[in-house]
């Protein structure tokens, strides 16, 4: 085999390897400029350190855990103000909100940066919509490798998330390579630039595909991953809120989810319909604008600080639209 290589394409192969190396180096140098999300992913450690710094007297440390819905939907200043109005003392707020993530990613992020290092917040607010809390594999397992997981998580990853040799190999490579980990960001940027209406067109193609493949019967969702996350947090005495966030498309809260929240002593705050939040306040069809974010944050803060929490109650104002 060695002779075979030596006699022919050694230089070509070396060139290819050099190119891959250069690509990786370039990506590592510039990955922070790729998107806000990459910069955010790289600040998990600092964020965890900030939240775990010893509190001042009477200070409550609140960690928001979610995705871009939380990024656009939680107004930190409004939250702090509203909590102050309610008579509570100081709050320290941090948001962990990587794009396009759900409970599988949140679980490992919380475990790596908070639970495993004894850096638990006082309050954990998990913002979700639709099926974000349902059991499902991570949409970006390669990012789990690089940003979320530790080596000690490998047995659990292999048991629950990385079920095939390919998934495990891809995970291991992504742990080493920023290029593999963030290539989808380059892809979507390049295609946005080159193909007219790419995002909207792909969404439409996906809609057509999923409409065909959607299962006609409803199978009850499961929440094993959420249970693990909640058990982890509750075990450390963290007060946990599950915040069902407003989005333009209506969604149901599964009875199994309510049951789990009750069982683990977690408050489920139903913010699906926040008074004053209207469909036109979602300019991209998914995320809240600043005014909707203020309304939602205020609603959430009030629900949290209220002595009688409005758990699983409908807001008293008319639904949007």
């Amino acid at each position, binding site marked *: *085999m060695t002779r*075979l290589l030596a006699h022919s394409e050694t230089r070509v192969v070396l060139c290819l390897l050099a*190119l891959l190396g250069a690509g990786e180096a370039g990506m590592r140098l510039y990955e922070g400029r790729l998107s806000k999300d990459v910069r955010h992913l790289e600040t998990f450690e600092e964020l965890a350190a900030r939240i775990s710094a010893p509190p001042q007297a009477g200070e409550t440390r609140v960690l928001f855990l979610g995705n871009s819905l939380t990024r656009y939907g939680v107004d930190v200043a409004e939250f702090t103000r509203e909590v102050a109005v309610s008579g509570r003392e100081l709050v320290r707020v941090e948001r962990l909100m990587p794009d396009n993530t759900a409970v599988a990613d949140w679980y490992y992020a919380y475990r790596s940066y908070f639970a495993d290092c004894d850096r638990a917040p006082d309050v954990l607010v998990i913002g979700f919509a639709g099926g974000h809390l349902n059991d499902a594999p991570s949409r970006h397992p390669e990012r789990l490798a690089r940003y979320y997981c530790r080596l000690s998580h490998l047995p659990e990853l292999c048991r629950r998330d990385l079920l095939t040799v390919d998934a495990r190999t891809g995970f291991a490579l992504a742990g080493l390579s920023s290029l593999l980990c963030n*290539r989808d960001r380059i892809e979507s940027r390049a295609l946005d630039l080159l193909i007219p209406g790419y995002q909207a067109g792909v969404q439409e193609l996906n809609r057509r*595909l999923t409409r065909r493949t959607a299962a006609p019967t409803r199978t009850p969702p499961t929440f094993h991953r959420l249970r693990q996350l909640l058990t982890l947090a509750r075990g450390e005495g963290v007060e946990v809120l599950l915040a069902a966030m407003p989005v333009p498309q209506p969604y149901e809260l599964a009875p199994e989810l309510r049951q789990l929240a009750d069982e683990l002593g977690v408050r489920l705050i139903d913010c699906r319909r926040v008074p004053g939040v209207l469909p036109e306040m979602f300019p991209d069809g998914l995320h809240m604008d600043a005014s909707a974010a203020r309304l939602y944050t205020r609603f959430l803060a009030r629900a949290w600080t209220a002595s009688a929490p409005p758990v699983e109650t409908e807001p008293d104002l008319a639904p949007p639209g």
Partner: protein
Amino acid sequence: MLFNSYAFWMFYAVVAAVYFRVGHRAQNRLLLAASYFFYGCWDWRFLGLIVVSTLVDFWVALELDRCANPRLRRGWLLGSIATNLGLLAFFKYYGFFSQELGRLLGAVGLPVLLPSLDIVLPVGISFYTFQTMSYTIDVYRRQLPAVRNLPDFALYVAFFPQLVAGPIERATRLLPQVVQPRRHHPGDFAEGLFHVLTGLFKKVFVADTLAMVVNALFATPTSELTGTEVLIGVYAFAFQIYGDFSGYSSIARGVAKWLGFDLMENFRRPYFAETPSEFWQRWHISLSQWLRDYLYIPLGGNRGGTLLTYRNLLLTMLLGGLWHGAAWTFLAWGAYHGLLLCLFRFFEQRRSRLSATTSPEPIRFLRRVLMFHLVCVGWLLFRAESLTQAAAMLTLVATDLTLTPVAITMLGMLAFYAGPLLVLEVWLEQQPASNELLQRHWAVRAAVYAALVQLMLLFPPVTPSQFIYFQF
């Protein structure tokens, strides 16, 4: 275990690491074990089918070799063909024919409840069945002596690079390479690398990415589509199926080359064909040649006059369509290509009487464009979920060419994902040899490969798909 999976390359690395350290006989046994393991990764249960097919043909060939009585020899051959086609018929066609027969009998007032079996199609059954049949027929024709060594023959049947999706290798080509010790040449690695990288590029960058466009098109009710969307979707399918199948063949050639085996070229830039017959000399060459040698010529070929030639062409293509699967759409696709071949033959004979001169380049270009579109009509029949859907889509193409935003995105994706392949193929088509890149300076190759690897790396498909031809 797909060629574009990490699992395959780990498997291959282990096999190669052992392979180059042992002698010829041990190499063959290693490859046989590896091939059975490779196939077993899909479904161990179906390994029995390969073993049965191997044993039957090995034994029948020995008898054919030994026997001089023509009637007895014919009996042995028929026995082998019946076994192979019987397995194929049961696993591939039983469901379709029992359902259609039940429907037919119901329509004439004889409702019959035929047993419905939920049969899983063994991967690659059509490929290895045709390969073993060609061996037995060649031994029957005394074009080849029977192999005396069972493991060698078993390796010929199950050789993992081409086991599940071809090329359908003839025993006259592949068996000597199994039986004789392999000789490695200095250019083998370079050639293998060329085939592997271009194959992976076709599969990962072209086929799997266009799969989303194609699947979305055929999942949409025709009432919600425009002709432009259909047209672009069918173009996308033309490149998807080409990238998928020729990509597989190319990787198979590459990995076989590294092991010292020379597999046949299965695709030669088919969309540059100017005529239907040229298309079949460029597309799935191993199947076209198989059908020609074991079906068309035995049926009489073009030796029995014009009408019989047309009949033979139609029958061959119809069975070629049926080989792909048990569905009316595949039969229609086969019949359509048979018809194209007949029409071409009809016009070609008239044209050659008038003029024998070569057409100028612009005319040749137009003929290629026309042929590509004729092939695309066939692809619509091939990919459609029913003949009704195919007819509705064809009607749309003829009546409604509204340019929608989705159509523009689809066109953009088609240009982005198929464009680089087209550029590479235009260049290759102008070169005297298919592997011209290997004659160029190493820096040129490195640059081309770098571009292919970068595109694969940065623009991966959302989900890797199985190779389309595994289902055939």
